[in-house]
């Protein structure tokens, strides 16, 4: 027994002897924690820097100034000014002529072919549009800025190193020389890239844009919002305000919680099997995409809406019931308006999820190569994240910066939506 009574002096010595080691351990642990946080933040910074670093240059487009001769014999040899003839004229030939005029020294066939690849195939379309709008141009001369080919674009932006040997570079030495001679004359300029923001997809990086994908995303999100917001709010109201506590209600709740964690690709399988194969809805349509995303975002909206309803104090309900309102009137006139900011916040977050989602949309055929900008919820289309996926697979160097830029646009939309949600919560959420 007496051995158990340790001498206090000895105990404190033993504690003090280990104290240094324990404090060092404490320091180490603390540093690990800080390191973990720092590492996480480093990843955030790394991703943003990486994407912005490769993507910002896609917002600029390299253009080349060409002296175009709208010669009558090439565009409209018979002088009829018939729109059908103007529309199918050989504008590519006009461009080629302009290039040959600028570089008269190029004679061999192979060199000429290389010369023609300096400007984009979209240049001919620009001329065509000009002439169609203003047939008076025919027979005149003018200097026109036309988009450069994607390789030249990369060269001018410095993504292709002019110092490496010719064999390891996509752009030949003589092309570099041509571009440099144009640069000296100030005939090469980088302008803001409106093509990227407005046009549809294309096989040519310099002509590809996110306009079609943004419209597709917009239609898909509208369908999702129109379906998921009413259904989600109605479900939340029923479960929170009316449902009796029984096994059916429990089943619904368990289902909602499980659906929140089902992998998104499984929803794609559901959409493919039910909406497309069973109901025969069109493939690649924003309508079907919106329906699939509705099923995916419903759990998010329901859970947020229920939390918002729960936060409304019972005294509000009791007061309304006390002055003779029915339960339905209590909920729709008093509880729901008070819970609405919370519900809207949840809905915006759900919409942000839906905007970034791509896996289920691959299943229902929204990965097709679509050039046209969709005009409605039944037109074949793709969405922004799927467009990113498609471009990320393309081998051309020009698509790498397009992909990053599309990601920047997508992240921009997401940040906007989240900021909106935060503002909504800060401004309208009431604490009781």
């Amino acid at each position, binding site marked *: 027994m007496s051995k158990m009574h340790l001498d206090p002096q000895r105990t404190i010595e033993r504690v003090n002897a280990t104290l240094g080691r324990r404090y060092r351990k404490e320091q180490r642990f603390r540093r690990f924690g800080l390191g973990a*946080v720092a590492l996480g933040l480093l990843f955030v910074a790394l991703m943003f820097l990486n994407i912005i670093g490769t993507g910002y240059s896609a917002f600029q487009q390299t253009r080349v100034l060409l002296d175009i001769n709208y010669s009558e014999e090439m565009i409209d040899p018979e002088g009829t000014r018939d729109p059908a003839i103007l529309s199918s004229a050989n504008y590519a030939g006009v461009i080629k002529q302009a290039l040959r005029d600028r570089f008269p020294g190029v004679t061999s066939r192979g060199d000429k072919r290389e010369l023609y690849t300096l400007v984009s195939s979209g240049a001919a379309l620009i001329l065509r549009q000009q002439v169609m709008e203003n047939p008076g141009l025919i027979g005149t001369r003018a200097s026109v800025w036309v988009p450069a080919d994607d390789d030249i674009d990369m060269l001018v932006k410095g993504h292709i190193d002019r110092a490496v040997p010719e064999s390891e570079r996509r752009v030949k030495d003589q092309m570099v020389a041509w571009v440099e001679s144009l640069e000296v004359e100030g005939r090469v300029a980088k302008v803001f890239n409106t093509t990227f923001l407005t046009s549809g997809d294309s096989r040519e990086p310099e002509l590809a844009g996110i306009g079609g994908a943004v419209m597709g995303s917009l239609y898909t999100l509208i369908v999702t919002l129109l379906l998921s917001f009413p259904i989600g709010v*109605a479900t939340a109201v029923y479960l929170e305000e009316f449902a009796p506590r029984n096994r059916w209600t429990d089943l619904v709740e368990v289902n909602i919680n499980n659906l929140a964690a089902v992998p*998104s690709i*499984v929803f794609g399988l559901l959409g*493919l099997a039910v909406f497309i194969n069973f109901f025969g809805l069109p493939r690649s349509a924003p309508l079907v995409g919106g329906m699939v995303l509705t099923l995916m975002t*419903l759990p998010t909206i329901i859970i947020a809406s229920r939390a918002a309803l729960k936060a409304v104090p019972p005294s509000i309900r009791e007061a309304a019931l006390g002055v003779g309102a029915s339960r339905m009137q209590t909920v729709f006139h008093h509880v729901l308006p008070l819970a609405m900011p919370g519900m809207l916040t949840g809905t915006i977050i759900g919409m942000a999820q839906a905007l970034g989602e791509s896996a289920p949309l691959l299943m229902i055929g929204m990965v097709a190569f679509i050039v046209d900008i969709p005009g409605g919820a039944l037109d074949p289309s793709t969405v922004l994240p799927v467009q990113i996926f498609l471009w990320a697979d393309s081998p051309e160097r020009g698509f790498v910066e397009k992909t990053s830029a599309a990601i920047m646009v997508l992240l921009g939309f997401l940040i906007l939506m989240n900021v909106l949600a935060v503002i909504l919560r800060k401004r309208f959420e009431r604490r009781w």
Partner: protein
Amino acid sequence: MSHTLLILILLGLMALAYQLGRRRSLKLVGGSRQVKALHSLPSYYGFYTAIWCGLPALLVLFLWVSLQSSVVRDLVVSGLPDSMQSLPPARLGLVINDIQNLAQGNIVSGEISPAMQAAADHYTRLRQTSQAASFVVVLCIALAGLALGWRFVSPVFRARNRVETVVRWLLVVCSTIAIFTTLGIVLSVLFESIRFFEMVPISQFLFGLEWSPQMAIREDQVGSSGAFGMIPLFAGTLLIALIAMLVAVPIGLMSAVYLAEYAGSHFRAWAKPLLEILAGIPTVVYGFFAALTVAPFIRDNGALLGLDVSSESALAAGLVMGIMIIPFISSLSDDVITAVPQSMRDASLGVGATRSETVRKVILPAALPGIVGGILLAVSRAIGETMIVVMAAGLSANLTANPLQSVTTVTVQIVTLLVGDQEFDSPKTLAAFALGLMLFLITLVLNVVALHVVRKYREAYE
């Protein structure tokens, strides 16, 4: 789109019905001063009439639209010559596709025969008839409903109770959509899986060590009989998920501990939302990052060390997936760590333990069930994650534990099997649904277990 127009007309009619019902109720009692003589507020009579006008018509429209395409298809098929009707289902499907394309003026795969042209005209006619008929029928029902509802309006009529009953049923119907979704998922993957298991024995699918669905396209190809073993896919999935967990659990857990126990409120207020940005980034962005930045980085550095790293290594995909999961683990752990009662911390600190000793010996053991639950949820998410692996992991099914080699996952195979042209009775396509079924079951079990663990733990401290 004429159905949009129809719906707009219906909405207009409903607004009209509302006004009519409301006016009639007021008129019957002799103006708004006598409103007390009505059983319900006038607007309820309006709602009642509007419901009669809109609800039946919308239901009929919905049924019409959902059945239209299959009925038209059957009618077109029955109008085809016998020689075409007796084609095998897959060929027949192709013919119908061509007919539809022809009718819509799209490009057709084969040559246009007179029979096809006739069928296409038939198809167009049927669709037009159906469209026009739906217009007439739906509008008739709407007007009939309006008249009926309008006639019901009377001062003793309990309009509010009726309207509330209808609204209540609408709420109930909305709340069952969650159940129908689950049911739809289970049935859609189950039916296709059963068809798959009729072609490929289930034991072979579950325990086979070989996966090469491409071989099964032609009958005479070598190995066309059996290359549907899912073991390599699940091994690959688990390998990538394991790498992801090795990244995410230490970083996520330690940052949660630091933010909850050490960080000042100021640091916490900006570090936490910044970390949670990671959770809001779309997975396709992670996929791009993995494929174009991380994978080449790992390959080049591996080459410097003399290692043979595949350009689609499991390591790159797993690493980036781990980054994606960090905020998931850290916010779930943060919740359970802050839920540990302050008294336990005070007691531990009071007997002289350091902060880290308190964390390791008191808080983490107390929070362990919740943390385990969170980790299980994260594993389930890693297994079901699609875009990162589609973009950064490989396609060949290697049965390997080497993270530097290329492996494939369940989700990658589902995507590659189902994207692009498909025929719906080849084992290749159906295999995707069987994989989907397995994925659904595994994640379901993980989720149920995890939610159970988390909930049980929460009850203990509340």
